[in-house]
């Protein structure tokens, strides 16, 4: 029988990871985790996750940086906040997941065309540019940028139904005062650097 090491030695971990995350908004309480597992048992997505939420929190606390940031879990969180309202230690778990998503995005550690972050970025881009989202254009951008042309074809019958009931328009929505939005985005970004 081959003996395989399953756990990391301490020197392979990133002890500074906890501080790195607690600095991000909404993550201050993470140290309080008592590993009760209420989050994992409440999460509707647990069954699809590689590491359930409780394990992600333990990873953050103990310096398992790569494992946490590479996890599929953070992208599966639909922000339903069930874990967050039930957590006895009052950890803002949904906000922790958001923070990990941002960190992973910043460091580009997910496949470039992975559909979930593509949707997030595409929607943010449209809003920063036009001030308003346009559903049809968001969907087109999503399918093109995640390279799922076949998936787009499969959506066509639904698209037709929505058009027939007047629920899908070709119009590009936009606000009037785009100049103000641009000034705001610029001001926020400048200070962040």
């Amino acid at each position, binding site marked *: 029988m081959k003996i395989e090491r399953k756990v990391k030695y301490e020197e392979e971990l990133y002890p500074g990871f906890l501080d790195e995350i607690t600095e991000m*908004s909404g993550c201050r309480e993470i140290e309080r985790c008592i590993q009760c597992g209420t989050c994992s048992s409440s999460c509707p997505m647990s069954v699809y996750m590689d590491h359930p939420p409780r394990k992600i929190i333990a990873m953050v606390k103990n310096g398992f940086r790569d494992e946490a940031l590479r996890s599929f879990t953070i992208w599966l969180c639909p922000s339903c906040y069930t874990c967050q*309202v039930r957590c006895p230690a009052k950890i803002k778990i949904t906000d922790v997941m958001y923070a990990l998503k941002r960190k992973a995005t910043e460091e580009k550690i997910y496949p470039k065309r992975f559909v979930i972050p593509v949707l997030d970025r595409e929607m943010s881009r449209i809003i920063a540019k036009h001030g308003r989202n346009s559903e049809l254009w968001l969907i087109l951008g999503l399918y093109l940028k995640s390279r799922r042309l076949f998936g787009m074809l499969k959506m066509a019958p639904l698209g037709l139904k929505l058009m027939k*009931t007047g629920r899908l328009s070709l119009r590009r929505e936009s606000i*009037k005062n785009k100049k103000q939005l641009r000034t705001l985005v610029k001001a*926020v970004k400048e200070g962040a650097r």
Partner: protein
Amino acid sequence: MNRYAYFPGCSLKGNSRHYEESILPVFREIGLPLEELEDWNCCGATAYFSVDDTLAAAICGRNLSLAEQANRDIIAPCAGCYLTLRKSNAFLTSREAKAAKIRADLKTAGCEYRGTVAVKHPLEVLKNEVGFDKIKSMVRRPLAGWNVACYYGCQLVRPYTDFDDPDYPTSLDALMAAAGARPVDFTAKTRCCGGSLTGTIEEVGLRLNYILLKEAKRKGADCVVTICPLCQFNLEVTQDKIVKRFGEDIRMPILYFSQLLGLALGVDKKDLGFSRSIVPLQPLWNKLSTGGAR
């Protein structure tokens, strides 16, 4: 004088325009006509917090500022807009250093926010300010015999709200009862519909919606009543695929609470956006004409 500015968000101008088409006549009927917030921008929903949380709060700050200048509170019927605006409002009015920086940036852009605006959901206003007793007295066409599964979803009741319970809310059930319908004991009422995952990872989305529809069917519901555009969309458009994938007929109409309430208050059926339903509504109309009798 009306204190509210109506914040539609992208959905109520897009695929869920029947939510707008029904919420406006309902509020007119109860004497609180809604006026749209001038030049509002999108809230960013869950997407913006995954990309840049500072910008996410800032763009919501612009909306709050517009409402403040107009001396109005905000009514946001979309649960996503409601949560995002409330979350950003709480953050922007906090003592965090980052919040002070965003407030300064808002001022630079000519949309200063002093923190005086409250963000509310129509259901919250109907419950706390109008009162379900008053609504009951205004009902002209009770929805007798309608068995409804009241579905709250996630973002209305968690965690930035205080008007109902986060796990087992009851306000929508009480409102539907006031309209004459019979709310079934829908235990999945705050279980997640998958949100945008239905559009990204279909396998997950189908399963979650199947769980919800199956539970509604099992409890004998004739339709599901929703307060959120994304819930309504997911529950409605996944039905054909669910039938194919799980081999079970869980099809049923998915309607907005405002459509049902409008009907009960006597608004003309044609003016409530029912024609936008993808699922056939005939079984419900049969009930309406017979007053629930078989």
